[in-house]
């Protein structure tokens, strides 16, 4: 136990989130520790010893002898065991950071109990029991040089196969453009997430389009106003939902996506989802809400092919129990093109500068707890605040909608950004709060310093104390407010660390990459069939038809890869051109005239 605790302390300074997990994770007792003939500990699972029963160090030396790296390559070791082979790799390449990927946390726990961690840090970054898509999304894999620990592979063959598969999928996604249809919600906090997903996917080189259901929000809300009869209201709502399902299907039929991604509160009924399945593409849902507060997931989750969530544990269990397929934990993120540090004008500074800022809706716990800060220079922006209250008088925008650019200014301008996760019934901090809101990442990406209430999932995402500062009660909040208002340099450093972490690991691009890898690990072949289809890229199809070396083929080459292509595309391109018209351009213009008049 002494060794474990010593190792834990060392690990805490090196990988605090992992240390936290190792400490919290209950023991499963599947690993037995034996002593080899030369006196070294070796793990055994079932009848499989993960190292030589005689001389594990010699075995490791022999095993690693053929493993060579050049300057550009990064060593990645599949399987930890008790690390003898890892130490050999460290010996050979002492200046390199080495990734060790181990699927079983039990192995790692036993390792921590039996092996001195000191020789391994700081060279080793342990990736323990992490889903392959997450590993791929967080790491650049193009320079990986793999060392396979064969006994570990035997134990966790499926996992390592998936990891290789994930790498293959990731590489394929980087080199091919997917068509992704995003179904937006009518309204609410998840609508910006939908828009960010689209922007992120397009930035990544894919072709993402949205079904802008928010354009139908007025219709949706008017149903509630038109009748007080609940039966009638439900009937109208159901018909409206059916219409929206058809509307979305029409867009999908036209766009021919490789993936349909629905964002929380998108108006897709089970019937509509089943209809979309005729496309024979994955239909995914990103539930960016609190499952305990918003309950409609029970009706729709089983119909989706993939269900992404901000919460796991209990939520995952419940999802599986109702037949949901492939629940997968995927936290929120920021969009660097939107959430960034900006220069503020004098007017902006006048408007947005403050000691403490808060941007968000007037939920119960915020209304209750923010009164504790009335003695500070405190500004609030958001909606649904009671403007006549003490706290309400601090609301700068009088409950009016705020543009995203102004939100970014708020995050940039305040000395302390307050980030209290919402609750409809807690007086302050939710003691069992789990998921992390997008604001956490957005503030960090803007370089803002934030005080955020403790959340169980936060520890893995950002390092409290180093990259973000947390509070566990309103009293604690008040103390930290006072402290950091008087220690701005420290706050600034933490904000910088937080920004670095978030931009490296917690952008919407990271999330989308992880999502796509996860989905297409199961669907790569059908994706390849669709992408390789001659009807996929219409320009390529036309070139193929007329011949690549023909005059028309050569002319069409400039349009390859365009999202939309038609005769009009060419005509518009010609109109913007300069100089004499070529023969091909004249023929296109003539074709356009014929098409318009004759067909």
């Amino acid at each position, binding site marked *: 136990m002494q060794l474990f605790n010593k190792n834990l302390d060392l690990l805490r300074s090196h990988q605090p989130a992992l240390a936290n997990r190792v400490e919290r994770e209950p023991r499963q007792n599947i690993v037995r520790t034996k002593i080899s003939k030369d006196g070294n500990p070796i793990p055994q699972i079932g009848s499989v010893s993960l190292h030589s029963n005689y001389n594990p160090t010699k075995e490791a030396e022999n095993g690693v002898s053929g493993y060579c790296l050049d300057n550009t390559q990064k060593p990645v070791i599949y399987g930890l065991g008790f690390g003898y082979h890892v130490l050999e790799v460290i010996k050979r390449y002492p200046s390199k950071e080495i990734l060790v990927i181990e699927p079983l946390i039990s192995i790692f726990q036993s390792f921590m109990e039996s092996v001195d961690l000191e020789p391994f840090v700081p060279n080793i970054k342990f990736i323990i029991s992490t889903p392959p898509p997450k590993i791929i999304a967080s790491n650049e894999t193009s320079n990986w040089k793999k060392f396979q620990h064969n006994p570990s592979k035997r134990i966790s063959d499926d996992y390592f196969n998936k990891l290789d598969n994930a790498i293959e999928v990731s590489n394929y996604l980087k080199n091919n453009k997917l068509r992704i249809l995003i179904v937006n919600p009518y309204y609410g906090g998840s609508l910006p997430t939908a828009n960010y997903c689209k922007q992120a996917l397009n930035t990544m080189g894919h072709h993402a389009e949205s079904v802008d259901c928010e354009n139908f929000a007025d219709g949706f809300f008017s149903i509630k106003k038109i009748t007080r009869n609940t039966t009638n209201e439900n009937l109208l709502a159901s018909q409206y939902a059916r219409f929206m399902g058809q509307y979305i299907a029409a867009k999908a039929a036209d766009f021919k996506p490789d993936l349909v991604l629905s964002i929380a509160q998108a108006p897709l009924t089970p019937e509509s989802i089943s209809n979309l399945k005729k496309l024979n593409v994955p239909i995914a849902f990103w539930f960016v809400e609190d499952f305990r507060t918003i309950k409609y997931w029970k009706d729709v989750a089983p119909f989706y092919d993939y269900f992404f969530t901000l919460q796991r544990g209990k939520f995952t269990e419940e999802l599986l129990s109702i037949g949901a397929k492939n629940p997968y934990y995927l936290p929120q993120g920021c969009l660097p093109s939107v959430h960034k540090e900006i220069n503020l004008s004098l007017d902006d500074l006048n408007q947005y500068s403050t000691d403490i800022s808060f941007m968000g809706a007037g939920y119960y716990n915020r209304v209750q707890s923010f009164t504790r800060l009335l003695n500070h220079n405190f500004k609030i922006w958001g909606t649904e605040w009671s403007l006549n209250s003490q706290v309400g008088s601090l609301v700068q925008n009088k409950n009016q909608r705020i543009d995203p650019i102004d939100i970014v200014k708020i995050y940039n301008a305040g000395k302390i950004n307050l980030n209290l996760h919402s609750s409809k019934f807690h007086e302050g901090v939710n003691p069992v709060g789990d998921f992390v809101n997008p604001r956490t990442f957005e503030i960090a990406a803007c370089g803002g310093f934030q005080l955020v209430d403790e959340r169980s999932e936060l520890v893995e995402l950002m390092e409290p104390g180093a990259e973000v500062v947390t509070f566990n009660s309103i009293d604690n909040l008040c103390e930290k407010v006072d402290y950091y208002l008087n220690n701005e340099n420290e706050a600034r450093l933490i904000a910088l660390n937080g920004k670095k972490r978030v931009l490296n690991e917690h952008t919407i691009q990271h999330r989308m990459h992880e999502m796509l890898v996860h989905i297409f690990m199961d669907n790569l072949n059908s994706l390849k069939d669709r992408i390789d289809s001659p009807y996929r890229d219409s320009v390529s199809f*036309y070139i193929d*038809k007329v011949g690549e070396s023909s005059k*028309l083929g050569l002319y069409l080459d400039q349009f390859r890869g365009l999202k939309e292509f038609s*005769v009009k595309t060419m005509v518009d391109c010609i109109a913007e051109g300069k100089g004499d018209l070529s023969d091909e351009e*004249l023929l296109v213009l*003539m*074709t356009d*005239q*014929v098409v318009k008049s*004759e067909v």
Partner: protein
Amino acid sequence: MVKNILILNMTRMGDLVQSTPAIAGLRKEYPNASITLVVSSLFDEFSKKIPFINKRVVFDIKQFENREVKNKILWIDIYQYLEKFLSNLKFDDYDLLINLSHSKLSAFMISYLKIKNIRGFGCNENGDRIMVNPWMQYFGIEPLNRQFNPFNLVEIFTRSAGVFPEDNPIQLLSDDNKLILKKFENDINYDDDLLIGIQAGSSLEGRRWSPQNFAILADKLIEKLDAKIILLGVDSEKNIAEQIILISKYKNKIIDLTGRTNIDQLTALVSRCSYLITNDTGTMHIAAAVGTTIVGLFFAHAHPFETAPYSSGHIIFQARISCAPCSYGVTCDNVICVNKVHPKHVMSMILSHYKYGAWCAVPEISNLNEVNIYETCVGKDWRLRLRPLIKNSLTLNDIFREAYLMHWMVFLGTTKINKSSQSHVKDILLKEYDCRNILTLSKQVEVKACALRDLDNLASRGISYANDLIDMCLNKISTHIIRIKFLSEEIEVLDNKISQIGFIHPEIKPVVDIFAKRKENFQGDDPIKLSKESLKCYRQLKEEGNYLENLLASITSDLKIANADNFHAAVNSINVEVPGR
């Protein structure tokens, strides 16, 4: 030396007939050249009747109609067809191209073929439409100034091809009609029957006289002249024919041949008719070409001055209401023009013509003030013109239309026509219109003359600016750059003012519009060349404005004098009753 001529005429049947003067003129100009005619596949058969053609090339884009587009490859099929079609034409190495199709498609084709010598509607290397020929430029402004246009489209196109229509009537090659007409021997006694054709349909529904009116007229013709009526038209017009027969009292005297004739048979039948009563259609132009007397019914957009049959001896009925003719592109939901022409009026005119062999104003029509009746005839200037048979009150539009006839003949560059004396205009107006309101009209003309003087001032300013620009561009002094920029801006302001005069005074708009059209056709970006072209435009504007002002003054003065003479004659003392005598 021109050896190989290509004519693009991918338009409708009537337009093909109307292009025969141009083709005849080209044949005269180039007697040894080979003439190739490109026609639409729809009129492939008909085009065999166009004289002076050595070779026909069929342009068949109709094949792409109704093709399924599920594979989305249709545009490639069209592209490849066009490429092959035009490559074949290129291979034939034409040295003169006449474009009688006024479409963008034909303009692009011309640009692709790269034939240097072209006449008609063209396109430059950048894809911009160009109309270099003055008559083509006039054609470009005509749709916006229809009420002042004195020219038949045949005349405009023929002159734009560099040919004089006065010497070249419309014509078609004739076939052995007897053989062709044998098919209908059972229905028609060609020797005894007075055959009258009715073309009741037309391409545009709004242009048609009602089946009821046709039926009433047919009955009258049968009753009064023992005529045999044949209903002509395409298959889609069968329902119109059926309605006529249903209403008529003499069904056995009406033969429905709609959809039953090919083009040869139609031509033969029309040539055998004594009269063709028709809406503004291609059949009407066939009748004009084969010498059949036409009674034309022009409604909606149809405008006799544009599309009257281009030969003499025909009459045209048109509503004389403020909205006639209506503009292309509008859809009327309260059509009243078609009801202004009554079958009894048409019958009266035909009866009179049948009896006397000439058109004249019968008493029944003399008080019609909501109908125009024109006769097509050749005037003193050998041009075909429309002679009103009802002497309506002279209007400002009438004065300007006649004035523009002379004006454009001078300025659009035709050396064939002598500059008629301005008194000739006076004579025509006095003969064809009731000019007693000339005093009122002359005041209106004076207002327009004032506007023309304003135009003259603006044109002078334009000349001055253009001269300054030329000087500065030639001298290339860098300090002039600011001045050049200033002048360019001033010219833009000036042109807007010129344009505004046209809007405020529609009677002057043709002059303003052609000024703008000339400027549109500037080519290249050499500033000196462009400035010189600008100078030329302003000078032309000045000259034309002055000419028109003088012409109008002369016309109104002559008319006032003539009217005064008539007045004095009317109140001569000899004619005054002396009390008690």
